[in-house]
């Protein structure tokens, strides 16, 4: 029996039951802790014994806290730099990989993905050696041969944030290149051929054809990286021992939440810092989700 159009739009109970376990676990392990975190952020910083309700006090304190704003700025700079460099390099690598012999393409892609498969703590430990003061790989193999003075990457406030960015770029570039390679390979050949026949140059084809075609994958990459940048903790914890480095030059929002809760003994204010990340993160995600859509649409109709 053929179902009417309105029937087809209604979810069947079978589908709902299939999704139920997911939503049960989501409620248990995500919504409940989130709600508990919100309540915690409204309580006094008492570690033992009864807490008192302080309302939005911790959030008001954050607005007047210069270290918090430093962490917001650092996180924003870290996120924008990491995402820009990672996506640019990933696009270059993905294009380069397309021209590789198919037999070596697989091993190369796997090699590029290894840093992304590494646990962040292991990667950060490795980077302790890369950033080591005088003997580190970065100083010995790049900075010194170029004739510059060695850089104390983990202590010099001018370079601390760069160290965190380098580590994140190293981790994710290969992974993103793999996603973008898949997207590039999935482009319909006839559209590219048509553009070429119409006389579009390399740059024009990239901007007006390729970018709109890989836009969904790019959006996924951007969202993935934004979330990772805002949630960045393990890497910077290993590099700076839970601090923001000299002069708080590498202090990120999650690190600051950790400091508030576990060094300052203030679980309430720590929870407030953690939850304050939500609007920043949501803002970035909305920007990515909304702005590019217009750009892609515009590009695809040119």
């Amino acid at each position, binding site marked *: 029996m053929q179902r009417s159009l309105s029937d087809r739009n209604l979810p069947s109970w079978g589908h709902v039951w299939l999704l139920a376990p997911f939503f049960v676990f989501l409620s248990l392990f995500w919504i409940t802790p989130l709600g508990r975190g919100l309540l915690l952020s409204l309580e006094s910083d008492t*570690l033992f*014994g*009864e807490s008192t309700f302080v309302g939005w006090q911790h959030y008001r304190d954050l607005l*007047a806290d210069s270290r918090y704003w430093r962490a917001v700025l650092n996180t924003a700079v870290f996120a924008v730099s990491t995402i820009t460099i990672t996506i640019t390099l990933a696009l270059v690598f993905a294009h380069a990989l397309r021209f590789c012999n198919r037999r070596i393409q697989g091993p190369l892609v796997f090699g590029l993905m290894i840093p992304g498969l590494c646990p962040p703590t292991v990667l950060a430990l490795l980077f302790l050696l890369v950033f080591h*003061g005088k003997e580190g790989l970065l100083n010995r193999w790049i900075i010194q041969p170029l004739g510059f003075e060695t850089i104390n990457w983990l202590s010099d*406030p001018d370079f601390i944030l760069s160290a965190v960015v380098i580590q994140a770029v190293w981790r994710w570039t290969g992974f993103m290149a793999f996603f973008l390679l898949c997207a590039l390979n999935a482009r319909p050949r006839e559209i590219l051929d048509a553009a070429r026949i119409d006389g579009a140059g390399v740059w024009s084809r990239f901007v007006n054809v390729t970018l709109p075609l890989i836009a969904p994958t790019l959006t996924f990459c951007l969202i993935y990286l934004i979330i990772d940048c805002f949630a960045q903790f393990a890497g910077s914890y290993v590099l700076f021992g*839970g601090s923001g480095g000299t002069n708080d030059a590498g202090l990120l929002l999650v690190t600051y939440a950790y400091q508030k809760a576990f060094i300052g003994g203030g679980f309430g204010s720590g929870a407030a810092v953690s939850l304050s990340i939500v609007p920043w993160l949501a803002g970035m995600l909305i920007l990515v989700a909304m702005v590019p859509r217009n750009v892609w649409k515009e590009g695809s109709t040119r």
Partner: protein
Amino acid sequence: MNSFLNFPSIANRSVRFALIIIICAIVNVSWAEPVKIWISSQQDKIYYDNMVRLYQQEVDADFQAEVQAFGFREMPDKLAIAFKTQTNTPDIVQLDEVFFGMYLQGEAPFVDLTDRVKAVGLDESIMPQRLELFSLGDRVLGLPQSLSAVVIYYRRDLFQQFSLSPSEFKTWDDFMAIGEELAAQNQPLLALDPSYFGMLLRQRGGHLFSETGDVLPDFELAVETLEFMGELAQKRIGLMPDRSTIFDPVFFGGDVANNEILAIMGADWYGLDMIQQFSSELEGEWGIMPLPVWTDEQGNPNSVRTSTFAGQGLVVYKGSDLIDESWEFVKFVMTNREANAQRFLQGNSFPAYKPAFEDIRLLQPQPFFGYDSMGQILVDLAPEVPRVMMNPKRPMAVFMIREGMLSSVMYGEGDARTALTRFKDQLEGGGGPPPGVN
């Protein structure tokens, strides 16, 4: 199947099951619950396992304890969560004084040991400045295990190479003058760690917190001290290690192995534990000397010859069901002659318990330090160890100092007054209630 559902059979099974439960309950009651001890290093776990055995031999053969070792930084995190959730809490905790203050926001989770300490005379026999460190107001909340007197560990071989003698370093002015001569030869004298700020400030009689909870009550002295450290760095007398810390053995061990510095400032536990671990190949090449003194404008000494930094203590959890058993064990570890001697001999720390100072084993010359007697030097310096004012914000203050808040001055990227004003403002701006609000 039918016989399984048979009622008499079910009743029979139920009776047997109930009997098993009752037997289990009786066994559980008669079986002594182990005292849970949380320790913040593997080396200390070995010590405490031995102490549990010693306690069983000498005091209570039925005593049971479960010693759990965590990482130095990991344990305070786990403890904070255990206290907050009141789940899986320990009975006894070995806690560094640097983290102790963190748990004093609101009601203190530790047993008030004041009466017990007085009853056994520990208030007289433990160095008062160390006992004060684990106290809040008049209440003793923990017992210090370490004297934590700060000395200078110097390289004998490199001192000889540069024709230097420890006796030349009487004042910090002498230190600066000799350091400048060495810097001219491109040789830094001292490893420079941000935590030296607190050490040097205390040596001069200054404090991070006043008794009433004010941050940097001796502000001008603090500025002068940080300026002195900045000068050491700028004149390249002091070397900022990689990662800016002497507490990272992987990085700092390389600096020491490459002869990049001639001396390190550190507490007793630093020499007993860390130096011997990251530079074991330099056995016999190290020596120990007291800190140079500070002088007034006329050049007269106006400071003690030592300072203090960090050090472990023992606390008992207030919610424990085994408070008495825990206290008896803590008392044993604090007062037993062998327990104190082993703590030093196994490379943990030098005790703060005064009667232990007479134990000849603690005063023996040590081959690692070129046959200097670390024990004798520490006993001589013990009365001069400065006080430390405990405060719930102290962990954050130490963390901010150690992890780079003031390092910018050493890098020449800011002046001491601005850095300390920022430090003071940020500590005054957050970090919980003032001390004593419980």
